[in-house]
């Protein structure tokens, strides 16, 4: 007992001293980041981390937040393991123990949804780079700001694209099949798809959720083959996107087009793992490396040199999120959560290193949704330099000289 107290006392005293120092010292802004660092979405968590670090290094090297006397940004991470309960617990810990000024995260919509409620309760601003479930900004929360387009916008764009490409190539699409992971994200997309398909007069021949922890997708692929749709629409995480793409090729499923929804299909290891089986796939994404914006190529080269992979939509949104936060801090000139919140709500970011996205401004509406966010559609194809993702839609963003392939030729 005696020894115990002899050791603990100085330790407690020390930590108390450091604790007060950190609070009193205004030269750091603590940004808490809840991301999936392990578990099924760990790849995406790592990308988000790498992008955040790149942005924060740049911001700190350029002198930090000037209105706060050159305050540096400090990133603190917590692993959600893609589990909602873990995200909630980590948010509590980051707010109460780490005393973060701003929160960001959590990639998985299912985690972001309950976690933003914690931030709202404590009045800590929560910037969501990319979690697309509509309901995240439909909660009437004052402290939630989302940069990426929400899923109802994505699905609307997927259907507009479908209509445009039929007109462009004169091929008719009549039947659709929906296959999606059974999480918040997949089910959210499917609900929208059903409504949009009905409005546009398509016949839905298959509507199939599958468990995202599945180890065999051939039963689902068999079902697709038997339903024989014109267009197959997918929502998948990484491991299942790879499995699904390979299995579809193995069973020689013939459709006019496969339209994916980013996520697993946009994961950098996806193309490496499936190779030519991914050819002609359409995918809707936040961002693509061939996007025609100043600074985009440089930022991508820098990221690639560090991490060996291209920037992804997830990474770009995380990168942009840091600049959005920095911009808000400059205007708030305060670490008080309410002031930061006010500044975020008044955001109108049109330039700077963060603005390498496909659209022109970050501006939040009353619900905290970035009203300008819009995704692009790409096609995976080989035009002499190996398989790559080529931006094709909206048509004015299409890579010069590329003609999309539709309907998909049989392989």
């Amino acid at each position: 007992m005696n020894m115990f107290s002899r050791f603990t006392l100085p330790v407690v005293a020390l930590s108390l001293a450091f604790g007060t120092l950190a609070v009193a010292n205004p030269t750091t802004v603590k940004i808490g980041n809840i991301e999936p660092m392990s578990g099924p979405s760990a790849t995406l968590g790592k990308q988000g981390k790498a992008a955040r670090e790149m942005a924060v290094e740049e911001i700190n090297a350029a002198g930090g937040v000037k209105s706060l006397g050159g305050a540096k940004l400090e990133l603190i991470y917590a692993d959600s393991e893609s589990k909602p309960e873990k995200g909630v617990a980590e948010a509590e810990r980051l707010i109460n123990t780490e005393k973060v000024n701003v929160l960001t995260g959590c990639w998985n919509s299912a985690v972001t949804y309950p976690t933003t409620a914690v931030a709202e309760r404590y009045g800590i601003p929560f910037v969501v780079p990319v979690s697309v479930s509509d309901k995240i900004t439909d909660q009437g929360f004052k402290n939630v700001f989302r940069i990426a387009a929400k899923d109802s916008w994505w699905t609307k764009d997927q259907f507009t694209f479908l209509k445009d490409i039929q007109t462009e190539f004169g091929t008719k699409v009549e039947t659709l099949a929906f296959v999606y992971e059974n999480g918040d994200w997949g089910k959210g997309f499917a609900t929208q798809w059903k409504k949009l398909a009905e409005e546009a007069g398509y016949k839905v021949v298959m509507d199939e959720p599958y468990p995202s922890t599945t180890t065999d997708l051939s039963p689902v692929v068999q079902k697709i083959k038997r339903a024989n749709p014109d267009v197959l629409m997918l929502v998948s995480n990484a491991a299942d996107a790879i499995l699904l793409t390979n299995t579809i090729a193995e069973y020689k499923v013939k459709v006019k087009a496969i339209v994916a929804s980013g996520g697993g299909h946009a994961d950098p290891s996806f193309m490496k793992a499936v190779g030519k089986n991914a050819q002609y796939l359409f995918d809707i994404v936040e961002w693509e490396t061939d996007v025609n914006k100043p600074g985009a190529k440089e930022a991508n080269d820098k990221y690639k040199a560090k991490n060996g992979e291209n920037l992804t939509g997830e990474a770009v949104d995380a990168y942009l999120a840091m600049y959005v936060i920095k911009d808000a801090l400059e205007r708030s000139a305060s670490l008080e959560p309410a002031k930061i919140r006010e500044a975020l709500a008044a955001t109108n970011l049109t330039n700077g290193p963060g603005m390498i996205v496909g659209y022109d401004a970050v501006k939040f509406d009353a619900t905290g949704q970035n009203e300008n966010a819009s995704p692009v559609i790409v096609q995976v194809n080989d035009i002499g330099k190996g398989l790559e993702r080529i931006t094709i839609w909206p048509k004015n963003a299409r890579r010069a000289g590329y003609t999309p392939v539709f309907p998909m030729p049989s392989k």
Partner: protein
Amino acid sequence: MLYIIEDMINGVLMGSIYGLTAMGLTIIFGVLKVINFAHGSLLMVGMYATYWAITLTGVHPYLALAMVIPAMFIFGYYLQAIVIKPIFIAEKNVREPITVIIVTTGIWYILDNLALLVFGPQYRSLADNPLKGKMLEVGGMFVSQPKLFGFITAIITASTIHWFLQKTVMGRAIRATSMDREAASLMGINQYRIYNVAFGIGAATTGIAAVTLLPFYNVFPTVGVLFDIKCFIIVVLGGLGSISGALLGGIIIGLIESVGPQFMTATWTEAIVYGLFLLVLFVKPSGLFGQKHDW
């Protein structure tokens, strides 16, 4: 009708591979009487070993067995000898060595995170090889060749282990230890060496499962987690410690997963699998092939 047959074939093939992934778990349990929570991680280690063996040498996927089986045996043997044995010895007067279960959980976390550190979070799959994506087309039915190879391998592995346990001196010693470790010790069997060997065999079997999976699956640090729960359900269904039970349990799950989605959405088959799991626990807790008596 043709559809159902096609689905049943896929179910049996995939199920036998599930059975093979669970076989190592059931062997280790049968002898050590310990649920090895690091089982999925052993599978993950086996899959990375297979991936690198094939990628670096460019051999036919199944030739990797020659490298993966001994490597996994040694890995399992020394994992037990160095990490788990000391706990067993410390707990030797306890009838149910619970601490060992906690140690295996620790091994699971350490291995998965080591893989994340060393190999990164990427999903890797084999480059083109003689098996990847190959299908047999029989009368309008598609049968996956890599899965057919897996099925044959599972049958051979199960029969070999059965023969080994029944006919060899080491096999008899293993069975003796699994029936009554005290009595076996009194007969001059070194129970800790038997544990090492059993763990080695369990890991090697899991390595074989890894080889059968890789031609059509991909590997990433947490791949074991996806198979873990399935393996536990399979061994409970088939009976803890039973080799043929593991194979049959795997095939039952494979059939439910493969035929089920043709009548309902794929997510429901999961519910059926868990429902069956509970039913077996209620009606026949020792599993379909398990021994009735307690060890």
